[in-house]
């Protein structure tokens, strides 16, 4: 066993002295993750929902209809619009920042007085009239929209969505209020003054006029009884309202909301998507948006781990050809120790590479590893068992390919299968989500598929709240078995080379 360590130490020493290889082993995978991360952009790794996102900041302090603030009504309205989702932004600074950095084209802000202003909206002369030729005066309602000037088209769409929503809020509210006014004694008094009825000749004896204002007529009818007069006035009001309701049967003029005004039934198929703003930047130094790295880092970790097959295998084949290997075989060191001596460095390098990628991913990219609910055992399974099983399989594969290949060309050809093809099938190059339905079934024919499945489990996306440790165990077991089989074949083959006829 000591002999294995002596050989392993020498192998590592050689590798470290080969600065280019050492750099390639560690820097290249990380550079790839970074470059692809930058290229792929924000949406990568998220299930696309094809919904237009409207970002809203709700500062509204007042109350509107049904004890809800008008802002909430407006948000409800926008959410109920097909193909639109609403994202609630927490705070003015964040809203400014998101627009300034171009992450959001525009943010709609309902300022603290919004409900109060809507409440004041009225067709009455003393009320707030929010309308103008093209829509609604946002400033009159204390609504503001901050826009990114570099995204004029998107912000224009967002603004018009806002305009329509406000129209649908303010219009029914104003109509309903106005309609209520029809029953108002004040209105009837006004009406009584304005509307004069002609007096038929037969009655001119009683009222010696051609015309009489409605108000006077009602007073006359009540026989100067004030209460009765009021009662008559109310009846007229209700009468008018009823008449109008009858006339405009399709509308509920007192509804005060768009839905009841238009008597529309909400389309049950409209999925309401209301979310709060999620910081997808990640917490890392580079703040590059962590979601995509939750997929890229495991994929590349697995892919580069298995591409060690080529590098380690290459070193092994090169040594076989250099004569040092025969010299190694001519020492009294046991075959198993020689094999271990070649095996251990690859495991060590593979483990280092995995931890290097995960560590740098966490530090620089804000990669999320594990869940806060994990116990120490869970962490050990995730960060020791799985990386070790993966590295075991990688090291065994590299020796297997190395012992089968007579020269570097053969090795390059042979290893392209596990390194490239299996990486593709295993889902390291294109995530399973992007591949045909049964791609994942095929993936489990490859070690990469198993490893990736488990590695993605330890780097959960923001939606994951649990970890399938059984899956991690299963993957680790499968990887170990694969490694064990390959290692056994290699051991037997090496024994034949050493003690056989050649």
């Amino acid at each position, binding site marked *: 066993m000591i002999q294995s360590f002596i050989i392993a130490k020498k192998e590592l020493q050689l590798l470290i002295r080969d600065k280019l290889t050492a750099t390639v082993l560690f820097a290249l995978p990380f550079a790839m993750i970074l470059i692809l991360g930058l290229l792929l952009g924000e949406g990568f790794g998220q299930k696309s929902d094809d919904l237009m996102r409207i970002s809203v900041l709700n500062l509204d302090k007042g109350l509107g209809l049904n004890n809800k603030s008008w802002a909430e009504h407006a948000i409800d309205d926008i959410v109920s619009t097909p193909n639109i989702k609403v994202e609630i932004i927490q705070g003015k600074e964040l809203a400014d920042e998101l627009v300034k950095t171009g992450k959001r084209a525009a943010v709609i802000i309902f300022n603290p007085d919004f409900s109060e202003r809507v409440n004041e909206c009225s067709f009455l002369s003393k009320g707030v009239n929010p309308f103008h030729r093209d829509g609604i005066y946002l400033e009159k309602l204390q609504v503001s929209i901050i826009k990114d000037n570099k995204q004029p088209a998107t912000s224009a769409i967002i603004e018009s969505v806002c305009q329509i929503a406000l129209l649908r809020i303010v219009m029914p509210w104003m109509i309903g209020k106005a309609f209520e006014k029809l029953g108002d004694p004040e209105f009837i008094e006004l009406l009584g003054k304005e509307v004069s009825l002609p007096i038929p000749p037969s009655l001119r004896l009683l009222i010696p006029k051609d015309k009489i204002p409605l108000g006077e007529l009602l007073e006359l009818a009540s026989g100067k009884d004030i209460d009765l007069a009021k009662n008559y006035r109310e009846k007229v009001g209700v009468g008018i309202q009823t008449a109008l309701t009858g006339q405009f049967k399709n509308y509920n003029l007192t509804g005060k909301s768009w839905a009841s005004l238009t008597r529309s039934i909400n389309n049950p198929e409209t999925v309401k998507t209301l979310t709060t703003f999620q910081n997808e930047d990640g917490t890392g130094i580079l703040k590059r948006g962590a979601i995509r790295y939750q997929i890229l880092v495991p994929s590349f970790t697995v892919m580069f781990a298995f591409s060690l097959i080529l590098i380690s295998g290459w070193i092994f084949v090169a040594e076989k050809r250099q004569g040092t290997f025969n010299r*190694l075989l001519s020492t009294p060191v046991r075959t198993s120790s020689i094999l271990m001596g070649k095996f251990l460095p690859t495991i060590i390098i593979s483990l280092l590479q995995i931890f290097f990628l995960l560590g740098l991913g966490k530090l620089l990219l804000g990669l999320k590893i594990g869940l806060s609910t994990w116990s120490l055992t869970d962490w050990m399974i995730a960060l020791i068992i799985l990386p070790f099983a993966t590295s075991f399989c990688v090291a065994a594969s590299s020796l297997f390919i190395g012992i089968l290949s007579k020269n570097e060309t053969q090795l390059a050809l042979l290893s392209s299968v596990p390194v490239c093809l299996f990486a593709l099938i295993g889902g390291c190059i294109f995530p399973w989500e992007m591949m045909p339905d049964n791609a994942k079934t095929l993936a489990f024919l490859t070690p990469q598929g198993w490893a990736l499945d488990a590695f993605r489990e330890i780097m959960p996306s923001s939606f994951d709240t649990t970890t399938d440790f059984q899956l991690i165990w299963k993957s680790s077991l499968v990887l170990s078995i694969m490694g064990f089989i390959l290692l056994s074949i290699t051991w037997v083959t090496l024994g034949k080379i050493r003690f*056989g006829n050649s």
Partner: protein
Amino acid sequence: MTQVHSVILKIDGVTKLHGQFRALNSISLTINRGEIFGLLGPNGAGKSTLLSILAGSSKPCSGIATFDGTQIQPSNQTLRSRIGLVPQDFAFYEDLTAKENLLFFGQLFGLRGTFLTNKVNEILQIIGLDDGKAHQYSKHFSGGMKRRLNLGIALVHSPDVLMLDEPTVGVDPQSRNRIFEAIKTINALGTTVIYTTHYMEEAESLCNRIAILDHGEIIACDTLKNLLALTQTTVKFSIIEDDQSKEEILIRSIPALKPNILPGSYSLTTHTNPTPDIINLLVNEKIQIINLQMDSPNLEKVFLSLTGRHLRD
């Protein structure tokens, strides 16, 4: 009894096939303890193949090889530390220094601690890499230095038998002398040496006994003197021939002497070198000599006479 003990390696009817090709054909040899045994043969004769069987890194197809009475087999691990093979090709780690290479292989043979460092320093001295060169990466070594390091690695575990497979290929005479000195030093310390070469001069100057290998067969195996005796030496000389009596004296004394076409010139071909006898005779008879040239025997001629071909084609 002593005779039996002095044999360290013995091969008996060893045949090795590479596919259909018969690289070694029923070879038998004995190598004595403490000698420098030469294995001389042209390219492709089967020298490396024979060494690999002797070193236990490959199996013969038939026949048996024994080391001190024990059968040499790849699976016989204990013999490995008693044999040191210097392969024909460089076999060391170019990204390690000379010293690191020696330490590494020493460790694989189970050497540790100060014993190992002392041993390594001793070898560095023997192979002449003991100055600053010991700490240079061996990839920066000259061909001669690489050859010496290649040799040194086979010495680190103090083998009983050192086998060298053409250890002087591509080195200048100075480096070759160093290698020879090293081999002689090792041999003087009691190590048996098997020296493989296709340079007959090397075998002549270094080896006690020499086997000549050709097409996988041993065509001769003996001491240098006996081998040289297999071929003949021709001496040609001319005298001032002023009267007929001198020729009569010469022919009477050396019956094998042949007169040439030119008057007064003769030639003599024998298995042993006849020059001293001829000069003695000429001095005694007061015959004046004009010139004498000797075509001395060498292994090249031995090979030529045995195979009809030159050692180097």
